[in-house]
């Protein structure tokens, strides 16, 4: 991986991969304000805000793709509707209600390691379909409405949604059919035609009143559960264009992509444009080499030029990515035990985890012998260190060669990441959905209406250029 080859030990520490040397570490959230704010940021940015959220799986060998989407539903159920085009007839499954919340918690970035100073100064798919599919007698619904050029292939209920899978010959026929059958579609015929020409299928959905709680005023209450669409596809695509007309000027889109290779968007939309600038800027502090400095300069110039020509341009932001190993899946087997230092795995060369007791002993010798601190000062400093680096809050790492440490120190503190215990416990729900040996990549893009003229195509990152990203960096993406 280009990242690991060029990293210093801290950069390597920032992206530890591989099998667990010590097994998973335990977790109990303790008072780490920075780590806690990551949880609250995730709540807002990853769960509440995004206009579009999708979990995409891609099996290039079988050419099977899946999208899991969770429609946002606010207000009167009769106003709710979705039209989702796909390259082939999809199979629909209900997904866990809090699926995207679980993904957000799972992918909270780990805190950055800190120096310790002894003296004060510091798809295909997986998953467990819950229910859904065709309702009895649905075969009768497979009918060709010759007048409209619309054929209903399948009808059913998935979660709280009533759906039909249809094909269409003509955009105006489909448009009329949607209106007549009371499927809310805020788009235009041109967009429908875009997909009809590609011979795509349409899943149309509306709330099934029988599945929702009714309020006193007759409106329906509740969340629309996430739905997974699984279908054959020649490429990994996401139907962005159909959402164009329902977007006022831009939409915040959050993607989780699971595939054998790390996935990215193409061209200007690639997350490499922002991630590499953030990462290489970080590396400048560790001693980036000439090649890295040149790449940073080139990429920064690209961003500047792009924004000069297009002031509203926003880069795609990589937010988390890793090939899921044994330790990462162990989080789902025992979340409370394994969440805090997920993926600690194999430490960089010259790094070794140490117990608090060993650290305090060494600290005491250092303070008494080399620093010649007074006994009362040693005693009080030891108490401070004991409280500050308690095992329940993180891990102490000893570095044999401080020159190989970003912090240029002999000891580092790797804080646990935090989230409320009840929500961490629920991560077990992701079992079966996340797969060992697959890359999970999370990225976000503010997509302007003008950028929604086509669907998104996701392609693998070239081999050797994968970027693992699981720890907070002190730098920001452009």
């Amino acid at each position: 991986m280009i990242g690991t080859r060029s990293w210093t030990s801290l950069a390597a520490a920032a992206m530890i991969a591989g099998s667990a040397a010590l097994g998973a570490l335990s977790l109990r959230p303790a008072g780490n304000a920075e780590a806690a704010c990551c949880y609250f940021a995730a709540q807002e940015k990853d769960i509440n805000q995004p206009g579009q959220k999708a979990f995409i799986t891609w099996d290039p060998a079988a050419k099977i793709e899946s999208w899991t989407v969770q429609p946002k539903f606010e207000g009167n159920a009769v106003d709710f509707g979705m039209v989702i085009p796909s390259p082939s007839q999809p199979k629909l499954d209900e997904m866990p209600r809090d699926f995207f919340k679980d993904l957000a918690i799972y992918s909270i970035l780990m805190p950055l390691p800190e120096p310790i100073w002894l003296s004060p100064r510091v798809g295909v798919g997986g998953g467990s379909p819950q229910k859904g599919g065709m309702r009895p007698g649905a075969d009768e619904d497979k009918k060709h409405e010759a007048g409209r050029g619309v054929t209903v292939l399948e009808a059913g209920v998935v979660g709280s949604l009533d759906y039909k899978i249809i094909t269409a010959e003509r955009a105006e026929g489909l448009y009329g059919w949607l209106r007549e059958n009371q499927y809310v579609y805020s788009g235009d015929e041109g967009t429908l035609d875009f997909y009809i020409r590609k011979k795509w299928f349409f899943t149309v959905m509306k709330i099934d009143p029988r599945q929702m709680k009714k309020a006193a005023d007759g409106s329906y209450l509740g969340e629309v559960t996430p739905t997974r669409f699984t279908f054959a596809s020649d490429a990994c695509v996401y139907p962005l264009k159909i959402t164009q007309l329902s977007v006022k000027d831009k939409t915040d889109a959050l993607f989780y992509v699971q595939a054998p290779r790390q996935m990215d968007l193409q061209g200007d939309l690639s997350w490499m444009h922002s991630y590499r600038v953030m990462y290489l800027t970080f590396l400048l502090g560790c001693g980036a080499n000439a090649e890295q400095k040149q790449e940073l300069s080139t990429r920064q110039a690209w961003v500047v030029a792009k924004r000069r020509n297009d002031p509203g341009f926003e880069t795609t932001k990589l937010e988390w990515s890793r090939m899921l190993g044994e330790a990462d899946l162990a989080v789902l087997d025992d979340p409370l035990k394994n969440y805090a230092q997920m993926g600690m795995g194999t430490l960089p060369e010259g790094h070794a985890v140490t117990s608090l007791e060993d650290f305090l002993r060494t600290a005491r010798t250092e303070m008494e012998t080399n620093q010649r601190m007074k006994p009362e000062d040693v005693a009080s400093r030891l108490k401070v260190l004991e409280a500050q680096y308690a095992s329940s809050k993180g891990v102490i790492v000893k570095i044999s060669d401080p020159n190989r440490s970003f912090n240029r120190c002999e000891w580092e503190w790797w804080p646990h990441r935090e989230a409320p215990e009840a929500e961490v416990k629920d991560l077990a729900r992701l079992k079966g959905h996340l797969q060992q040996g697959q890359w999970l990549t999370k990225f976000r893009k503010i997509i302007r209406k003008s950028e929604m003229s086509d669907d998104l195509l996701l392609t693998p990152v070239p081999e050797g250029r994968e970027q693992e990203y699981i720890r907070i960096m002190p730098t920001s993406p452009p």
Partner: protein
Amino acid sequence: MKRTRRIAGHFRLALLGAVLAAGCIDPASRPTSWWIEQLREEDPDDRRAAREQLVSRGAAAVPDLIPLLSAEDLVVAMSAADCLGTIGPASVPALIDALRTGPARGRGWAIHALKQIGAGARDALPALQDASRDPALRMSATLAIREISGN
């Protein structure tokens, strides 16, 4: 007068002898409790001497050392753990007991002592496995298990 001076002289000689004898008290004759208190001395040399004496007493010193694992003064706790670790397998039963039922504060040091004993502390492996489920002890217990079992 001559007799008085003779008695005073004998007294001074006896006093001098007592003083000399006090400076040459055999350390082994001092009670364990005395050396336990010496662990709290500020002078590192005094503490080192205390550790040496306590270790030399072996299993006999263990009951007095175990409570110190949960001392507020970390230097004392460390010293007690070092002593117990150096005493070796004779400490193991008491350390297991301290790990399972002792004050929470001292359990990390009990684990530390067991790790120091190494392979001779194999009997403690079940207790260490149980301790590894406690987030506050997991890292220490895991490292101790590796050391003791040789993995």
